[in-house]
């Protein structure tokens, strides 16, 4: 994992002092809320329905046990004993007091964490593949490049006041586990003729105008990585619309210009940017990359697992994925118990996961965009012990990628932007399909719920998506089918008139029944939907 140098630490410490003083001035009445609001947002502090909410950045979703314990400590000391892991691989606390904000940021700084650029029209936390460094199919570890982007984008003076917020994802596998093409810039590391480079997809996103990012450049030599990113941002910063918040994202600019014209302008800008020498020297790249060297895997570690405990075997099949190192495995910890709140974890659970990482996973954890946690490097001989400890902590739900592994935004229970509640709908769906055999019969089925058009719950990318809307003061839920955030990225299509809370659960059951009726061979729901089309499902829903 990357460790702060003196510059990283100095700027974070300075920001803590600065924000502590800004809070003091606000509390003393020296500045108004209108003056203070942009300052607190620059430090991830929102005012939500019930209290202040603090969003803490987890760079590319990677953290160690010391940092995870700190997240538990903050939940316990300053919040109401839990935190909410988000679809941007961050964590949010829902009950923060303004008077505690300075102390919280100071505590975070002691473990090289902060809340900088988790809000505002700037480059947000860089996201990545939660299996980075462990996946057999990656051409390189994407994290050094995500870290390079983090350093480049932190307090970047030119990109601190963009037309709108800006999200970047970096992956290095053909299998997309990070919804890469639904970011403002999605970068896939690729190899060509034995050389590393990057494919740049630009102009994707969800929200009220969802778009899948077009390929802008199929191979950027890795030594041009930062310059090309800078050129992409510069064109957006210059021409992105600042007159209309709903048309300010880069996806709108590229849609209006056309991908070819945007590409032409980026290439022109790149020719200039490259001359500025912003790409780091080889020694700096090596310094960063060294932090992500593979851990000291044990050669010849046992590659077999005793499956005699049937409950363990189910969890093994569902939540444990192949690792590139023989004798090791990737463990997914589901934060989606039936009836629970997707992405929420108590401080005690966060501590348990930190302890497991320290003892069994070379001190590493990852947060996934699906609001789960990953232990990336667990020896197969330790899997049973890890599972037993997860069971004790109510963290062993064997439902990864099944219908109850639901992404849900906080919705109207917490969020001031929401129009409808998301969490109760997720809970009702999970309860309706609580029978694990039934879930496994349905197979991979990604269900995603947003409580408003901003799409924090990724409803556009759900195999089944749900969008909560306000219909004359009443919650109403639209159903979408056919979305995907994976390498076969697609946007869901709205089925028709919406439903009330119970009605949408019934409608989903009609969809899954129809799927089982139409399924051929080993098709996933999405495969069947794409083969037979929209109409049979629409007819099943509405009759």
């Amino acid at each position, binding site marked *: 994992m990357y460790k702060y140098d003196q510059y990283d630490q100095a700027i974070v410490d300075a920001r803590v002092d600065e924000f502590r003083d800004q809070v003091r001035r*606000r*509390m003393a*009445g020296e500045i108004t*809320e209108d003056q203070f609001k942009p300052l607190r947002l620059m430090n991830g502090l929102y*005012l939500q*329905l*019930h*209290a*202040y909410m603090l969003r803490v950045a987890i760079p590319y979703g990677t953290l160690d046990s010391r940092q995870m314990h700190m997240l538990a400590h903050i939940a316990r000391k300053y919040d*109401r004993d839990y935190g909410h892991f988000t679809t941007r691989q961050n964590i949010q606390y*829902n*009950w*923060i*007091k*303004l*008077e505690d904000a300075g102390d919280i940021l100071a505590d975070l700084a002691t473990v090289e964490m902060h809340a900088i650029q988790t809000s505002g029209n700037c480059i947000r936390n860089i996201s990545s593949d939660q299996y980075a460094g462990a996946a057999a199919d990656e051409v390189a570890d994407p994290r050094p490049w995500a870290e390079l982007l983090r350093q480049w984008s932190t307090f970047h003076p030119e990109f601190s006041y963009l037309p709108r917020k800006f999200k970047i994802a970096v992956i290095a596998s053909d299998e997309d586990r990070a919804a890469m093409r639904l970011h403002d810039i999605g970068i896939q590391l690729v190899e060509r003729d034995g050389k590393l480079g990057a494919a740049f997809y630009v102009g994707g996103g969800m929200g009220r105008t969802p778009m899948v990012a077009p390929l802008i450049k199929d191979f950027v030599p890795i030594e041009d990585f930062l310059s090309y990113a800078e050129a992409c941002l510069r064109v957006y910063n210059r021409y992105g619309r600042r007159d209309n918040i709903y048309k300010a994202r880069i996806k709108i600019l590229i849609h209006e210009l056309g991908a070819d014209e945007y590409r032409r302008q980026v290439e022109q800008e790149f020719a200039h940017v490259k001359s500025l020498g912003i790409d780091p020297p080889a020694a700096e790249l090596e310094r960063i990359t060294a932090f992500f060297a593979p851990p000291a895997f044990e050669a010849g570690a046992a590659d077999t697992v005793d499956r005699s405990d049937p409950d363990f075997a189910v969890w093994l099949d569902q939540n444990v994925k192949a690792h590139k190192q023989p004798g090791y495995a990737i463990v997914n910890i589901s934060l989606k118990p039936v009836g629970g*709140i997707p992405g929420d974890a108590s401080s005690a659970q966060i501590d348990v996961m930190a302890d497991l990482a320290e003892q069994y996973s070379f001190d590493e954890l990852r947060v996934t965009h699906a609001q789960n946690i990953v232990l990336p490097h667990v020896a197969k001989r330790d899997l049973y012990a890890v599972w037993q400890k997860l069971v004790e902590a109510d963290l062993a739900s064997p439902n990864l990628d099944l219908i109850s592994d639901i992404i849900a935004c906080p919705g*109207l*229970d*917490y969020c*001031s932007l*929401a129009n409808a*509640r998301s*969490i*109760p709908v997720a*809970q009702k769906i999970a309860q309706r399909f609580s029978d694990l055999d039934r879930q496994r019969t349905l197979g991979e089925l990604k269900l995603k719920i947003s409580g408003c058009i901003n799409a924090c719950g990724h409803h556009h990318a759900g195999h089944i998506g749900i969008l909560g809307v*306000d219909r004359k*003061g*009443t*919650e109403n839920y639209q159903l979408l089918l056919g979305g995907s955030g994976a390498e076969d990225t697609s946007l869901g299509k709205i089925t028709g008139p919406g439903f009330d809370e119970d009605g949408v659960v019934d409608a989903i059951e009609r969809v899954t029944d129809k799927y089982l009726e139409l399924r051929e061979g080993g098709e996933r729901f999405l495969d069947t939907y794409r083969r037979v089309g929209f109409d049979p499902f629409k007819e099943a829903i509405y009759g």
Partner: protein
Amino acid sequence: MKLLTGNDLASGAVTWWTGDGWSLHVEDAVDVDEHGDAILAVEEAARRVNAPYIIDAVGTPEGPRPAHIKDRVRALGPTVRPDLTLKPADPDAGNWVI
């Protein structure tokens, strides 16, 4: 009826104008009629409330009930965590929101 609501500056807690101060409980809220903007200006300037605004509500025997579900969620707390609402001992409290 019109209610005045906002958040406590230091804690962020949801508060309601009672006629002579601020309460955590919507039951204590009073109809501000056409005086909301004037009260709001004075109270915000004195930092006794943060980000205040005026909402529509209806009177009930149990007290004012905000017209919009968002304000009812604000008044009670998250419906999915009854233990964190203002009425943790009342299992039916969430029904008031809906």
